[in-house]
């Protein structure tokens, strides 16, 4: 499935593996939390790992493993289910995790800018929904009233210009 980063399609280096598939050799894999639990004591080396969390699986569940993970994928089963927004914030703000955060599932372009502001790097979009709306969504607002994850901590709490990033 196409993967968007900064509004453009990028290569997805991770192969999604279900609970039962054998692990393919030599590639980075993205596994569900349940599978991760069976793996993480004896990780075959030579590849990077990602975990996919369902919306009710809070990021605290993988907190002890974050050091060995390169990717956390947060699932929105319905775009209205906004738990992933808090999950991403927790990964960045509470666990100071620097790896890739990916939003997967049912997501609409109107959420894209907000997802990036809470710390999400990449968004998975079905090919048939890949329109220009995604890229445009990133530029729809030049202003925000809250701090985002990538803002300098010295900015004042409210009101900022998004692209320039200077306090107003």
């Amino acid at each position, binding site marked *: 499935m196409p993967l968007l980063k900064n509004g453009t399609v990028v290569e997805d280096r991770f192969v999604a593996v279900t609970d039962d598939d054998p692990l393919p050799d030599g590639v980075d894999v993205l596994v569900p939390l349940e599978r991760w639990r069976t793996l993480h004591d004896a990780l075959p080396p030579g590849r990077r790992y990602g975990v996919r969390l369902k*919306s009710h699986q*809070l990021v605290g569940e993988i907190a002890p493993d974050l050091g060995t993970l390169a990717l956390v994928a947060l699932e929105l089963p319905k*775009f*209205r*289910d*906004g*738990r992933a*927004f*808090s*999950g991403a*914030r*927790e990964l960045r*703000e*509470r666990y100071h995790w620097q790896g890739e955060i990916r939003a997967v599932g049912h997501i*609409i372009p*109107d*959420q894209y*800018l*907000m*997802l990036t*502001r*809470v710390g999400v790097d990449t968004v998975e979009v079905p090919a048939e929904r890949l*329109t220009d*709306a995604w890229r*445009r969504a990133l530029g*729809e*607002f*030049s*202003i*925000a*009233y*809250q*701090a*985002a994850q990538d803002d300098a*901590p010295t900015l*004042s*709490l*409210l*009101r900022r*210009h998004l692209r320039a990033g200077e306090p*107003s």
Partner: protein
Amino acid sequence: MTHIQSRPNLAPDAHAGAYRYDAFDKTFVRERVAQFRGQVERRLSGALTEEEFKPLRLMNGVYLQLHAYMLRIAIPYGVLRSPQLRQLAMIGRRWDKGYGHFTTRQNIQFNWPALKDIPDMLDALAEVDMHAIQTSGNCIRNVTADHYCGAAADEIVDPRVYAEILRQWSTLHPEFTFLPRKFKIAISGSPQDRAAVQVHDIGLIATRNRDGAVGFTVYVGGGQGRSPFLAVKARDFVPEAELIGYLEAVLRTYNQLGRRDNIYKARIKVTVHEMGAEAFLNLVEEEYARLPRDRFRLDPAIVAAIESHFAPPPFEALPARSAALEAARAADPAFARWLRSNTHPHRQPGYAIAVVSLKPVGGIPGDATSDQMEALADLADRFSFGEVRVSHEQNLVLAHVRQDDLHALWQGLEAEGLGTANLNLVSDIIACPGLDYCALANARSIPIAQRISERFGDLDRQHEIGELKIKISGCINACGHHHVGHIGILGVDKKGEEFFQILLGGESASPAAALGEITGPGFSADGVVDAVETLVSTYLALRRPGERFIDTLNRTGHGPFKESIHAAA
């Protein structure tokens, strides 16, 4: 000299206590309207499904009602400047049927717009620094506040300052825009709560500690609807600098743990109730303890900058008592009656707070015509620094009127049918739209309010009865606040027929806040009006000197009241 010469050029609302948009805010609102135009286009082209479009239109205030779309416009903490009120009048005339409806959340809604016109209506709003953002949807809604803010004699902290800060903070919040359910915050700054803080998802009472520093008593988990709860106290005193951080912790905990499997159990009140208040609040405290405090610290410089928007208007130095007022009071009994019910003490000597009733006898609670809105804007310019507030009880407030001017103001109101002397009396009824507009309704609500109001049409009789708050909802969603009415009326459906249950003993104001109890079987539409009259007669027979309806009810218990209406059944 230059100062004096420049005065006549000042806009009549130059000193209105309202937040003024700067280029930053204006850009934001324009961008938001442009985004919504794009969303409407994508919906029409099929790029967005109706399921996907619905939450987006809701977050722009657009509802689909029984007969038509409805547009709900945000009036932040209920404060309007006169040019804004005139623009609302224009919108009502041009795109609706010549009136608007002020709501219990201090907003205004128009019940008859066409979807295609809505982006243009939003543009017209943006011209006067208004919008419909987050008046609906599962996000943080318009923050409500005490409608006497900045004027009440008993005020400790002006809640407008913090309501505006929260408005900004919650506007398109990147983390909290897809919550399990809607989220309502109310703030009061007086010991006498006038914002019903304990029936909100978060209720704040702004206060000062012994050193004079501002902080907030925080209540969490209140709400009405089908399972009503009073909010529990989370903190006695959150210092000003920590307000945003603490609210972030509450919202983040709720966003992750609130139920998403059942819309009726998704409000924070259910999360708090099901987990237990202590367990929930412990999680909030843990979350708060690990938040990066500096990042969320509310800088005193920001508070000061916002405060400057709400500087007191240039009051005149006046004697505490107005001779002109006393003369008019003595000469005109109808005016004296209005003064008694519809004015409130002001902190500034020689001034008063005047409340404009939107509950004329037999009228629709909260409705105002475009003509009335324009007349009110003019009266506000003449008598109250061009400022009008909307109260959560669906009335309008002119907050800073010279006592010398009260008689002229009242005459101006009377001429527009806005001078009804019934504030807090039996005909000052809150009623939801009910079956006349709402797709969810089981029963009519507005016609019941009209009939009760007509039954007690004699204003002198209403004054004799005294304070009595009747609140009516057309279904268990409780938009008419029946749980917190002294007398609450709930419309239910019984085998396809509408019935009305009566609740007794509710109260919206903290610390006396209470939920009413159902008295017994329901009544027909005729029967419920009779029953209200019987309850009033029972009170009049039982009351001791100085007791309000609710006082007598609390002293005697519900027994005699219940018997009086259910004995015959």
